């Protein structure tokens, strides 16, 4: 399957309707591995697909171009979801020159036997003339790995943005205006939160560098291509790179016998104030994808765990480990939980929140066995505090910008 972006620039990727687990990221709407073919005096393929789908990529390319005529293979990122078929392409097209940066070359060589490959190494500002079109390269380290790079076609104002602006979203269409845009933006947010939230500063640098280009279309390596709603995704990235808080309170918990659940609901009740969106997230199903996504724009978060063998529940521990790695910034919150005879769950949660650099708003909110009406009242008050803090954080950001 192919689809034209501009005359002689075609999408030749693979839509993966079945993938539901991307190294733990729950991809409920599948994904796509986008690869693009540019036909000119010289012909270039920009990125490949996950290894199992190499045959689909080669088939799509041959619909448009004999493989013997492929001159360049531009590799913007070596991670196997994009670089996985580079070996297959080189094997099918031994004449091809792999165009990439030095770091990407090293990583490709860690994943493939590259001893017979032809290379052309490029860096920021370097260009590749294809005939009528010119490719310009922009290194964007850590958007998503150290090798990440974007490729710009100046004649069309087309930016191949790699993992930046991507979404795990399978669809029969290729463009943002052919899909429900709110869904695409929601998937872009989930993608940002789960894949690159921790890299806010490098992404800000990349955005700054890209803003100097005249961009008319952004073609990421996963999901739909931005041509009608570029303003919306760019504005969203401006918010996400700083983890901009919205007036939102998130209450996350696990429970054994419902006591911590009762506390969570009371906290939620207290947080449900005018102007506040309060959300309850029961983590039992290990939905860390949603946890990260909801955290991205929440201002304040309470995390609850009963005490299990002196510590917290492993599902909560896993979620907090995941969140810590993603490094959400400018969040405040506290921990809570019910215990039986010796405590430990809520304190363990608080230590994780501290390590994630959350501002801790109060001591762990604990109760023994069932919460009493007094404890539930304390939970409601703590919830109200989360709401007040959320409004304060949101206003602080509004007045700064």
């Amino acid at each position, binding site marked *: 399957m192919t689809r034209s972006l501009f005359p002689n620039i075609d999408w030749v990727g693979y839509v993966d309707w079945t993938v539901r687990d991307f190294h733990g990221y729950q991809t409920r709407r599948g994904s796509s591995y986008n690869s693009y073919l540019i036909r000119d005096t010289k012909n270039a393929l920009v990125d490949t697909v996950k290894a199992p789908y190499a045959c689909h990529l080669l088939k799509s390319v041959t619909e448009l171009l004999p493989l013997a005529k492929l001159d360049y293979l531009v590799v913007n990122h070596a991670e196997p979801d994009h670089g996985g078929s580079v070996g297959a392409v080189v094997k099918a097209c031994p004449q091809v020159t792999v165009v990439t940066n030095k770091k990407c070359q090293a990583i490709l060589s860690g994943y493939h036997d590259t001893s017979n490959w032809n290379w052309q190494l490029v860096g920021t500002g370097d260009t590749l003339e294809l005939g009528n079109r010119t490719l310009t390269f922009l290194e964007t*380290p850590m958007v998503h790995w*150290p090798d990440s790079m974007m490729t710009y076609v100046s004649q069309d104002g087309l930016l191949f943005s790699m993992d930046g602006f991507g979404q795990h979203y399978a669809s029969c269409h290729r463009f943002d205006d052919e899909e429900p845009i709110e869904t695409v933006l929601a998937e872009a947010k989930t993608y940002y939160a789960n894949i690159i939230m921790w890299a806010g500063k*490098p992404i800000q640098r990349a955005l700054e560098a890209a803003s100097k280009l005249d961009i008319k279309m952004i073609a990421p390596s996963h999901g739909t291509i931005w041509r009608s709603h570029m303003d919306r995704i760019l504005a969203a990235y401006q918010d996400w790179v700083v983890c901009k808080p919205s007036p939102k309170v998130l209450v996350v918990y696990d429970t054994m016998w419902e006591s911590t659940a009762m506390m969570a609901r009371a906290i939620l009740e207290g947080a449900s104030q005018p102007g506040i969106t309060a959300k309850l997230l029961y983590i039992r199903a290990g939905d860390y994808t949603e946890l990260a996504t909801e955290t991205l724009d929440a201002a304040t978060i309470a995390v609850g765990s009963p005490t299990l063998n002196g510590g917290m529940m492993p599902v909560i521990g896993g979620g907090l480990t995941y969140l810590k790695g993603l490094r959400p910034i400018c969040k405040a919150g506290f921990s809570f939980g019910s215990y039986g005879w010796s405590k430990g769950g809520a304190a363990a949660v608080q230590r994780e929140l501290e390590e994630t650099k959350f501002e801790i708003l109060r001591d762990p909110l604990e109760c023994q066995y069932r919460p009493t009406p007094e404890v539930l009242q304390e939970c409601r008050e703590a919830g109200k505090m989360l709401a007040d803090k959320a409004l304060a954080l949101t206003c602080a950001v509004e007045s700064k910008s």
Partner: protein
Amino acid sequence: MKKYECNVCGYIYDPEQGDPDNGVEPGTAFEDLPDDWVCPECFVGKDEFTPVEE
């Protein structure tokens, strides 16, 4: 004091700014960073840093 650049991701350690997010005061020379300090952007260790030529 010299600035140091991360070989992996290009982050620049500027001793004048330190790395306050990770408890490193402004004015801390690269050499004085604790051994377990890692690049705040990509997590590699101090040995992956090279001095920036001015």
